């Protein structure tokens, strides 16, 4: 009893003291750039006293604290604010101006020219899964990217033809390291797939121009692939189809600090070609062996070491009708051996510094045999008078090695601003052997680069960079500046501009005889971009002007023998539109791309400035995806269209000057492709195996596709370049054994 009276006494006492000194009222307004900040928390540090601002940013509370105190104001999206105050008997009035916090979530993105893809990126246009489920792509990254604006529907050779640029003007990088032979070796007039599966990568940046100074040697475009870190689970995979059988495993350590994996695939199209007739006569069925291995280690400092290697061997042989004489055939055979290695190490080295080191080695050998054969498939020899026929009997052993090292350092400068610099070194060793003549070509290429990303506010950002390059083979240097600016025009919309100069070394075959007589080719990009991303809808409009200078011109010296100089030039201008909507119709996702381009160039053997034969003025794609959960089935449909492309027969006249002997325009390109996936194990809780059945048909309607024309030596006959078959069918079954996290995630959260 006495105890409680004492407590009571104490309370009275305390209350008395409170009364004696009185309470102080603190009031005011919290704002940022004149806008009120509602929901901000105001506290006297280390006390319970405080309040939250109302919808007009006003606040008011009382406190019994006295003397020097610290007022702390916090609100989501703003930097914490602190102010010292002295509390006496007078009410305190505070006007608090808060600074916005610049984060990746609210800041403007320097996006001119860039399509970002990835699972977590806010600006992502395509995710890795999107690549796999785009009908017509058959899980080939390049094919899926061809549904984006700015690219051409070129089917007669591999590569991404971006904004009036040839395929070799686009370079691919994996974890920052250049990839030398990103596509499988193939036969003439048939585009091949990329060597790398989309599932190897967590992020993809496809730049259609104005790309960062961290990359170089591509006049038009870069494709930056970022490999995944540790896998989410251990599993064993198998795939089976009439074309491909494969098996692999991915093992994740129990402590989730490291993983390794191996895969093997065998591709043989013999069965398929027996069922689906191909135009060429395959005398050696295309056959591929492909093995990959990888390891990934998470370092103590939170960094990653990643190694990936792939070895592939392929073999094929096919005959086509010889264009110069209807009773002869051209037999082409190819054996390819490719070994690719990529090692990367990224680490946070403290004090806001990040380091990325990379090394890569690749070797690629193509053994090509080309032979004219008679009706009985026997080799046919020609007299020296028919030199154009003789030129069709040859052997080529093309060995290409690339060894490179790269280092990039990044320093965070507060907020999102950062300074990056580094360098890279490529040792290029090419040894093509034509019949018995060896041409050796060694280039030591070195580059140094620096780039600053500066966020002046969350509305305004700039990226300024410069790149210095030197090639020992041509013995030339260049300096390539790049600038991008981005300004946020609304909560979800932004405008960005980019300007930059891009250099590229001439192609290998142009450098055999007098490499130092030519210099870098050059392109200048000007880009204006508007982008709005809101509520799962993306709208992107981009206009550009591209100026080509110092392009390579060829001067005829003899039949199929030229000298080269840098007197070529050209330009390209156009508009790219992209719209994607995942929202309007439930479980239905679609995107629409349209590009218009006006381009001319005077290069190689073009006698005047002309529209290149790989460019259509209008291209458009509609990609749709629909998943029916009840049926556990997804259907995907893609329609691609391009206006006709010009074609030319360019030949030297009697004075050894090129002229256009014949020209025309191909029919428009149309292709509708379909794919479907059935996932029967979807929904079986804790299923031990996960099965996907996949089927696809490219060009379902069998529309005739003409990519261009080949001309006979005399120019009297021309023949269409068509795909080897009208349609391509694929059916396959993919099984993985292991605990499937995707499955769990669906089960628990949808």
């Amino acid at each position, binding site marked *: 009893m006495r*105890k409680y009276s*004492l*407590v009571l006494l*104490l*309370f009275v006492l*305390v209350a008395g003291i409170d009364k004696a000194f009185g309470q102080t009222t603190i009031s005011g307004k919290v704002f940022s750039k004149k806008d009120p900040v*509602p*929901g901000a*928390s105001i*506290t006297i*540090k*280390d*006390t*319970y*006293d*405080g*309040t*939250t601002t109302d*919808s007009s940013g006003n606040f008011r509370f009382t406190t019994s604290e006295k003397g020097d105190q610290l007022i702390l104001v916090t609100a*989501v*999206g703003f930097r914490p604010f602190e102010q010292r105050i002295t509390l006496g008997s007078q009410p305190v009035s505070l006007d608090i101006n808060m600074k916005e916090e610049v984060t990746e*979530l*609210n800041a403007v993105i320097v996006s001119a020219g860039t399509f970002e893809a990835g*699972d*977590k990126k806010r600006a*992502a246009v395509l*995710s890795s*899964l999107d690549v796999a489920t785009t009908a017509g792509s058959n899980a080939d990254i390049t094919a899926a990217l061809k549904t984006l604006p700015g690219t051409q529907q070129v089917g007669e050779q591999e590569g991404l033809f971006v904004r009036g640029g040839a395929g070799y003007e686009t370079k691919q990088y994996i974890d920052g390291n250049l990839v030398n032979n990103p596509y499988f070796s193939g036969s003439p007039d048939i585009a091949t797939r990329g060597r790398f599966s989309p599932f190897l990568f967590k992020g993809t940046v496809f730049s259609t121009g104005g790309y960062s100074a961290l990359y170089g040697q591509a006049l038009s475009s870069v494709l930056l692939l970022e490999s995944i870190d540790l896998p*989410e689970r251990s599993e064993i995979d198998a795939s089976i189809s009439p074309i491909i059988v494969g098996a692999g495993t991915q093992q994740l350590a129990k402590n989730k600090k490291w993983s390794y994996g191996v895969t093997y695939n065998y591709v043989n199209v013999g069965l398929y070609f027996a069922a689906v007739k191909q135009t060429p006569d395959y005398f050696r069925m295309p056959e591929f062996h492909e093995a990959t291995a990888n390891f990934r280690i998470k370092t103590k400092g939170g960094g990653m070491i990643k190694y990936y290697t792939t070895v592939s061997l392929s073999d094929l042989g096919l005959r086509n009708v010889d264009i110069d004489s209807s009773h002869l055939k051209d037999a082409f055979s190819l054996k390819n051996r490719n070994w690719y290695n990529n090692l990367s190490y990224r680490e946070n080295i403290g004090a806001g510094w990040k380091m990325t080191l990379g090394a890569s080695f690749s070797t690629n050998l193509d053994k090509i045999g080309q032979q004219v054969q008679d009706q009985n498939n026997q080799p046919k020899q020609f007299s020296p008078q028919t030199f154009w026929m003789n030129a069709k009997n040859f052997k080529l052993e093309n060995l290409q090695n690339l060894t490179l090292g790269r280092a990039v350092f990044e320093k965070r400068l507060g907020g999102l601003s950062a300074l990056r610099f580094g360098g890279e070194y490529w040792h290029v060793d090419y040894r093509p052997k034509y019949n018995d003549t060896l041409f050796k070509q060694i280039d030591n290429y070195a580059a140094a680069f620096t780039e600053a990303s500066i966020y002046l506010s969350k509305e305004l950002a700039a990226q300024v960079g410069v790149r210095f390059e030197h090639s020992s083979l041509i013995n030339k240097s260049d300096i390539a500046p790049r600038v991008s600016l981005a300004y946020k025009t609304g909560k979800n919309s932004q405008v960005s501009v980019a300007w930059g100069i891009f250099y590229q070394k001439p192609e290998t075959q142009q450098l055999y005889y007098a490499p130092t007589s030519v210099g870098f080719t050059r392109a200048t990009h000007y880009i204006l971009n508007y982008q709005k991303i809101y509520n*799962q809808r993306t709208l992107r409009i981009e206009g550009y002007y591209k100026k080509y200078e110092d392009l390579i011109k060829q001067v005829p010296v003899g039949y199929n023998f030229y000298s080269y100089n840098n007197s070529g030039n050209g330009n390209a201008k156009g508009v790219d539109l992209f719209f994607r909507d*995942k929202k309007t119709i439930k*479980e239905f*996702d679609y995107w629409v791309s349209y590009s218009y381009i006006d381009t001319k160039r005077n290069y190689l053997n073009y006698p005047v400035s002309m529209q290149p034969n790989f460019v259509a003025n209008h291209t458009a794609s509609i990609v749709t995806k629909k998943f029916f*959960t*009840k049926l*556990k089935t997804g259907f995907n449909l893609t329609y691609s269209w391009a206006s006709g492309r010009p074609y030319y027969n360019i030949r030297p006249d009697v004075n050894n000057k090129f002229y256009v002997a014949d020209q025309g325009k191909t029919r428009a390109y149309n292709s509708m492709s379909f794919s479907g996936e059935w996932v029967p194990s*979807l*929904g*079986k*809780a804790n299923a031990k195996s996960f099965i996907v059945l996949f089927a696809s048909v490219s060009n379902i309607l069998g529309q005739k596709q003409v990519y261009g024309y080949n001309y006979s030596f005399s120019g009297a006959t021309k023949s269409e370049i068509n795909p080897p078959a009208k349609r391509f069918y694929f059916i396959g079954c993919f099984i993985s054994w292991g605990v499937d*996290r*995707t*499955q*769990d*995630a*669906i*089960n*628990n*959260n*949808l």
Partner: protein
Amino acid sequence: MKKFIFLLLAAVSLQAAAFAQSDKYAATMQKNLALFDSAKTAEDFTKLANTFERVGDAEKTQWLPYYYAGLALTTAGWMPTLTDKDANATRINALCDKAESIAKTDADKAEILSVRNMAATQQMLVDPQSRYMSYGATANQALEKAMKLDPNNPRLYYLQGMSLFGTPEQFGGGKAKAKPVFEKAVELYKQAKPKDLYPRWGQQQAEDMIKQCQ
């Protein structure tokens, strides 16, 4: 004797001061926990979260204020009026970080993980098709980890039931699958004897869900 009375007095007043301090904490917590029932709008819950965070920052050794601050924000996060789920989740996770650095027992950590589960679920629901691989997995991992730490926490089963309930039957969810989980939750709620100020929410909701599963 005089000395003894003085000592006794001193001891009593010291105890009283300590009592007063913890009483202030308990009283503040009680008062604000009561506000959970009257709060309606996202603004109300943000205000409540701010208050709890203030108490947590002042106390420094109590994880519950941070937990409740996070819980208030997840409650706001279910409302369509709160549009920026990512920013909200970032703040919730920061509060959970603070709570976890103080919480000592596995049971306490399991409670905090349940808040993380809800935050990640809210982020996933922004765009389930493209986000279930990332945020869906995060949510699931939080729940799995929590169940390992405290297999008898009824709220974890309530949350598991909710996710099963929201998952189409074709994906292994549905009412039939959710019902036994809700029933298990209710059973555990009946056995649970939460300490003062400790979380006790969810029983009514779980019972209502069983009715919806009929």
